[in-house]
């Protein structure tokens, strides 16, 4: 009941904060009424009470923010748990099946193949966790160098098509600048971030996929990668939170993917420059 407990805690702190603010306002008004003929206490009250009210409001805001942050950590933990346990559960299920049931050779091969895919998924999750942690620590700036951003996006576009078995019309270029765009950074980190964006666009596109990729250079020191899918979209309220939670908004509600990629992808541009 950790989450329920926190929701109740938020309600409690908001209610307490509101009550204290109301009390402070009542005291303030009372003070003014009782001391309206005495200038010194009246002025003192008018200055101190708003300060008291501001302090209470700030305190409530910080408490609520802290509780929300804990909630996000909880969501993230759930996401990691899911992403780690699911392939392990699958591998274990197939191993126990192989051990306990008579199987024909074709079935065995199928099961080995599934287990290999699950192992890859598990490895992918572990790598994402490690990379997200690296980026959090400010990345390894010593190894940064000039990399061709167009080439990276092109490579990842091809890789996504290949891995997701997509046609060239399902994931395609919109506008691609002819000049080479050089970005200072780690090619590997950029590849991961770009691949995550494409991967999410594919996941959330539904059956009919039409994903358009653009590289834009609005000014001399900025490069923007726009990935436009035609999926369910993200509600305005959810936009602020998509990188902090496992899923990309209520509409997606815990679809495939663990949110680690999103976290990584969001943090990377903050530490990069063109």
């Amino acid at each position, binding site marked *: 009941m950790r989450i329920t407990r926190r929701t109740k805690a938020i309600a409690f702190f908001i209610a307490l904060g509101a009550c204290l603010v109301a009390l402070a306002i009542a005291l303030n008004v009372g003070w003014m009424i009782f001391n309206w003929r005495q200038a010194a206490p009246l002025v003192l009250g008018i200055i101190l009470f708003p300060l008291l009210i501001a302090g209470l409001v700030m305190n409530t805001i910080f408490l609520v923010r802290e509780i929300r942050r804990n909630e996000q950590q909880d969501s993230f933990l759930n996401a990691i748990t899911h992403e780690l346990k699911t392939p392990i*559960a699958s591998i274990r*299920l197939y191993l126990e*099946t192989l051990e306990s049931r008579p199987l024909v050779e074709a079935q065995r091969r199928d099961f080995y193949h599934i287990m290999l895919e699950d192992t890859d998924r598990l490895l992918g999750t572990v790598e994402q966790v490690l990379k997200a942690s690296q980026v959090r620590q400010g990345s390894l700036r010593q190894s940064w160098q000039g990399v061709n951003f167009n080439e990276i996006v092109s490579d990842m576009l091809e890789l996504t098509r290949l891995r997701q078995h997509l046609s060239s019309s399902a994931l395609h270029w919109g506008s691609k600048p002819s000049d080479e765009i050089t970005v200072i950074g780690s090619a590997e980190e950029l590849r991961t971030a770009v691949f995550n964006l494409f991967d999410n666009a594919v996941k959330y596109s539904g059956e009919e996929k039409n994903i358009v990729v653009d590289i834009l250079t609005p000014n001399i020191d900025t490069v923007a990668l726009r990935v436009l899918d035609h999926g369910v979209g993200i509600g305005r309220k959810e936009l602020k939170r998509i990188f902090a939670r496992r899923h990309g908004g209520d509409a997606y509600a815990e679809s495939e993917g663990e949110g680690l990629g999103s976290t990584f992808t969001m943090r990377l541009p903050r530490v990069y420059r063109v």
Partner: protein
Amino acid sequence: MSRILIVEDEMHLAQGLRFNFEAEGHSVDITERGEDALTRLVKNREDFDALVLDVMLPGKDGFSVARELREAKNYIPLLMLTARGRPEDVLKGFESGADDYLAKPFNLAILIARIEGLLRRKNWSRITNSATGDHARPDADSQDSFRFDDKIIDFQNLQLRSGSNIVQLTVMESDLLRYLIRNAGHPVSRKAILQEVWNLHQDTDTRAIDNFIVRLRRYIEPKPSKPRYLLTVRGLGYRFLSNPEH
């Protein structure tokens, strides 16, 4: 042959489960979304003998699916299978109407045993109902039923009968009632209920039990807001009285 519906968005797991249940002689259907499961079970009234339900699903999560199924008076034996294995998640699962809960990664033999247990229970219920007629009263003196006032709890068929009214209980509701009745007249703590009924020994929030009690009161009390049979013992837990003073 029993029909099992698996609601699981991870296709590898779903296929592995299908293979094993089919090897045990059951027929299996798979759906990836909770909404589809609700449509098939509630709207289309498709006949399944058990439901294996993941919690973290695209769209509606497993807890909501279970809750909506029970609200629609669908009492299909339901096993929740999920990566969320913390005690509070297990309780939330039972609270939403699950009959059993298994955390991933699981042991295949245990999963099959639990599903067989749920199917066996459903089968007993079916046999009893077809042999005696749906509205027949169970033997009040038999070990698997309990009579108090005008009510009979049929633990075997998971039914509470009050006059002509029949309430279908979930396995967990029935187990909780059985535990309270076994300790009739004595207060039982929330902690003891957690340990004895749900087999949870960790430091879990015991308030989840209160929601179960509210539900049970709705079934057995003439006025749930003024309980006579299922009393709250302040600061401790609950006490069941089969024959309260009038």
